[in-house]
């Protein structure tokens, strides 16, 4: 039974991650391969604050959002200077550099040894959350908030501006809109949400190491986005459902663990190819990447 709640927690975390990827990739049409980098930055920054200051919930969310969001400016800047393929490459480069630093800067991040014993997040500063049920509640609340938030962004005039920028950025600029600021906001919010997902993960599992935040993880998140659907809210949610629940379904088939892990990746890869060919907006999405 506890296991079901564990899956639900991971589902909520991935809902946040895939929704955050949707804002930049799906709505602003900026394919980023560095979502896991922000996930990792949030996890490590959050861990630092949790271990040093035993922060309450609101504080830790605010701090992690802000700091991770600040890192997004590197990627925002890249999106201004570089176009198309080169931007994707730069986002990959950012992801790889973040991973390399997390892995090699042992005095600060403990590298491959990871950081154990991460304390839980404190609700209202006194009650430290621990255990599956507490984190299920927390992650559920955060996931719902994320859904409502992104829904609002999608339906709002800001969402309309992002879609307009995707259609023709120069024209939107000539209509008086600061497109650079609009895109920078998209990156900031996307990074902030991924970062919060990171600190929730860190506090829940109470151990993190760089292997959770690799380029492969970024690819995984993007795959979930493309399979589930880009441009709206239910697409990313479905994508998260797909990638989190599929391994569990495979478990019932009874394959040895190692093979099951590879098989699930084969299914993801195949799904990606099929979706891209037959339904490029994703199964439940409504936008196609330009």
């Amino acid at each position, binding site marked *: 039974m506890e296991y079901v709640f564990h899956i639900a927690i991971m589902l909520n975390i991935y809902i946040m991650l895939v929704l955050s990827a949707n804002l930049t990739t799906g709505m602003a049409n900026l394919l980023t391969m560095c979502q896991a980098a922000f996930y990792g930055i949030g996890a490590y920054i959050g861990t630092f604050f949790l271990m040093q200051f035993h922060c309450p919930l609101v504080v830790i969310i605010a701090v992690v959002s802000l700091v991770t969001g600040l890192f997004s400016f590197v990627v925002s800047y890249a999106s201004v200077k570089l176009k198309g*393929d080169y931007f994707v*490459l*730069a986002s990959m480069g950012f992801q790889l550099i973040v991973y390399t630093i997390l892995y090699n800067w042992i005095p600060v991040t403990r590298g491959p040894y990871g950081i154990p014993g991460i304390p839980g997040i404190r609700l209202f500063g006194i009650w430290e959350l621990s255990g599956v049920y507490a984190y299920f509640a927390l992650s559920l609340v955060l996931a719902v908030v994320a859904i409502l938030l992104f829904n609002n962004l999608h339906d709002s005039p800001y969402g309309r501006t992002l879609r307009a920028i995707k259609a023709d950025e120069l024209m939107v600029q000539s209509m008086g809109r600061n497109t650079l600021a609009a895109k920078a906001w998209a990156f900031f919010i996307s990074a902030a949400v991924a970062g919060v997902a990171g600190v929730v993960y860190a506090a829940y599992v109470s151990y993190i190491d760089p292997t959770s935040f690799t*380029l492969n993880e970024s690819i995984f998140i993007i795959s979930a986005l493309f399979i589930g659907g880009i441009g709206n809210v239910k697409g990313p949610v479905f994508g998260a459902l797909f990638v989190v629940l599929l391994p569990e379904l495979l478990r019932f088939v009874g394959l040895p663990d190692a093979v099951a892990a590879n098989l699930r990746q084969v299914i993801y890869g195949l799904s990606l190819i099929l979706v891209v060919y037959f339904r*490029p907006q994703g199964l439940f999405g409504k936008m196609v990447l330009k």
Partner: protein
Amino acid sequence: MFAQFIVNGLITGLLYSLLAIGFALVYNTTRIFHIAAAGIYVFAAYAFWWLAVKCGIPLLLAAILAIALTMGLSLFSEVGVYRPLRGKKSSLSVTMIASIGLMTVIVNLIAMVFGNETKVVETAILKTYSLGNLIITTPQLYQIIVSVVAITAFLILLGRTRLGLRVRALSADESLFESLGYDKQRAFSLVFLASGLFIGLASCALVYDVGLDPNMGMTVLINAMVAMIIGGAGRFGTCVAGGLLLGVLQSLTVYCFASNWQNAITFALLLGFLFLRPQGIAGYKQRVV
């Protein structure tokens, strides 16, 4: 000692050049970000290993067969995945996503069949050759021979034959190429075959030295992409310059700092060039639209 590092760097650099050419062949002509090349690289390695170690086929023959199979897989990626998408007028970004999917499928199928652990091709201790103070191992010797021959042959073919001219024309202007009456489909197929050849060559030459595991593809691919970019995208000869430079710089990083920061220099170079000199050392300055 220092010279040894430089030589090692140059030799690795030659292999990066091969990989960069393999990647650039696809990128320059089709503009597709051929991430599946990472999977093709892994396939070549495992084909070689299986033929040489499991089937007991003599090394050279195993390599040739493995490369042939790799070329086939490369062709499949074009005919089976990219061409249908082109027919659907999919954008390049969307095609890249499909490429990622293809890589995932290839790599994980291989892992399912062969397992995730590292394997080696050659377990015997091989001869080393001395050149003054420098030592060159047998695998390194093979790497040098293979790379130099392949690169030279490629540059000659590219620069002096009609086939090479067609590849360069296709890279320069796809629609003009077509309107001049050349068969674009055939040209693309040829390009992918050639790409598979270079990736296969580099893969066999490298894994003979260092062994193989299913997840090595991505790192190798990134090195190839960085080599292409710092050399100068859009041209092929520059891949060689980029590959050599990358190999030497990585080696120097190991010499000056430590081997675990080796990759950091690659990524730092990537970002540096992307931001400061996107045309690479010798490429065309592409007018950013």
